[in-house]
């Protein structure tokens, strides 16, 4: 126990300030101001892997490490879409995940936001839009913010999430 406590004290707090939103990532008009002010204080995210290679998942997992500390911004991941405000979707929508993705979207109560991240989620990436992949997530469900990258860095992902709940026309700091 002592070693554990000593390590915690030694390492201290390493959390960094969050990056500002980036309006360039916005794909759809922003939500109503009142809704945004609530979601901006306590946002619940449900992640859906719609066929990703797992690279984007690793960077999403990093969001909860002490450096990015997403929970410190009032943002947390939930196990059920019924508890979610925002869906974070990765992958070029494999045909075998289309039904599950639609079900998750339908199960998420309004008002809801969708952020897609990674080149696959934005354009189909190297897998394209053909055969076994439906391609960009917006082919299946409406998308509010699209964050490119392969994979996008955690800082970029946070920007994407913050952009979704930020006001339209508010320029990045």
């Amino acid at each position, binding site marked *: 126990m002592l*070693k*554990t406590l000593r*390590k*915690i004290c030694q*390492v201290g707090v*390493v959390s960094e300030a969050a990056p500002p939103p980036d309006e360039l990532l916005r794909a759809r008009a922003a939500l109503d101001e009142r809704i945004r002010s609530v979601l901006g204080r306590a946002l619940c995210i449900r*992640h*859906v*892997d*719609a*066929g*990703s*290679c*797992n*690279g*984007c*998942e*690793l*960077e*999403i*997992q*990093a969001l*909860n*490490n*002490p*450096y*990015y500390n997403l929970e410190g911004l009032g943002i947390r*991941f939930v*196990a059920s*879409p019924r508890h979610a405000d925002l869906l974070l979707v990765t*992958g*070029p929508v*494999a*045909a*075998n*995940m289309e039904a*599950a993705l639609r079900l*998750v979207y339908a199960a998420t109560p309004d008002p809801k936001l969708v952020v897609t991240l990674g080149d696959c989620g934005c354009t189909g*990436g*190297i*897998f*394209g839009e*053909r*055969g*076994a*992949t439906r391609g960009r997530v917006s082919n299946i469900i409406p998308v509010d913010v699209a964050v490119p990258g*392969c*994979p996008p*860095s955690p800082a970029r992902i946070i920007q994407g999430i913050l952009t979704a709940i930020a006001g339209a026309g508010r320029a990045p700091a």
Partner: protein
Amino acid sequence: MPLAKWWDRARELPGAPRTRGLGLTAEDWSRCAADVAASGGRLLAMWASECGDCDNGATIHAAFLADRGVLVIELSVSGARAPAAEPFDYPGIESLFPCASRMQRAIFDVSRVRSSDPDRRPWLRHPPEGPELVRVAGEGVHEIAVGPVHAGTIEPGHFRFSVVGEKVLRLEERFGYTHKGVERRFTELPLLEGHRLAARIAGDSAVAYSWAYCQALEGMAGCAIAPRAAALRAILLELERIANHLGDVGALANDAGFAFGLAQFSRIKEELLRALSHAFGQRYLLDAVVPGGTRGDVSAAAAESLAARIIAIGKEAAELRAIYEEHSGVRDRFAGAGILTPALASRLGVLGLAGRASGQALDTRIDFPSAPYDKLPPARILRQEGDVAARVAVRFDELAESCRLVESLLGSLPSGAHLGPIRVPADGSFATGLIEGWRGPVFVALEAGPEGRTRRCHAHDPSWQNWPAIEHAILGNIVADFPLINKSFNLAYSGVDL
């Protein structure tokens, strides 16, 4: 030695070390497989390709890992997709190699070629009515269905539990949810671009996959890799191993209720990823290995800084390991959970990290080394207990070894080029690649088409062999321990869904 008769007839194949290939008739196919099994060999991969001269037929390939080398056998079946006169197209090898079952089902899904083995349920194709899974009857038995969407931020897959009370009576896995048609996609890309797709089959194993692909490509093109390039590739591979092991040991502590472990290891992993970004331009090394060598070089200053970071990581990992081992709550959860006995691991053909925690010593960096591992082999790490604690211990041991290898390689980087020229291989060339990714050996079989196109690429993840083992390791454990046991294997979904 029964295997000698096949080995001596086989021709040498370029690419992966000590690999030979042999075309066989159907009877010889079965006999050869039986001889491999009798001599303790393992099934490495199985796949089908179109057969140019068998009239709408197909060629079935199987790669085996035997002591003397990798043996790739092939069997051509003609008119396989014509209406069936025969009940099957090729002899199945499931009774010799249980892990062949899903591979044969996947072959059927992709090329409609049927094995003689009875399980013909679709694997990669998902019929609209849902999967056909084995139902368990009995007093008090109920089913828990989990997935494809899981509670955490992980890949999709379906797990059907049959439970009595809290204990698991049976588990059946169902995958294919991330099937992206990778094998078809390879044929749409030029041979010299395929490494980018290979790296994105399982993003956490990008270096292993892209190196295995490049090894096959360079083998068939007759392109030698400069010593500096080989050393850099090994550094990248070991850094990938370190990154994954750091993530896993943190997540496993969290699954056992010790969030401190996740907080510390996720911090350390982040520090490593930032160091990788600084040294190689990417946090995850998806584009670092390219045909002919590595995309970028490492300056002396970057090498020194990276080495310092790795030394610091090694020290912290050892310190935290001691804390884990003294923590009674963690020990209680890890010890005895999810046991995969060595006997069962051997029978199932379990490979890689999970194998090494259950008495299966194979490590292709030691046993089938590609440069520079032939001159700098890692220590052999082996445990017999086969529980979660053993898989954690193997990760810690491998992490320490990988830190040692990276330090050593960075400190003795050969001078010279990091990238050499590569020419387009001739139509019909065939080669393989074999690289020990962090989960286990990644195998790539590559066939060149005309004018630099790709006729066929099969990229094989060791998770094909290991996923069935979890259906056994979970038996008798409580359902609530499934996340811990599953995470202790941490197998690829996208890697096997292709």
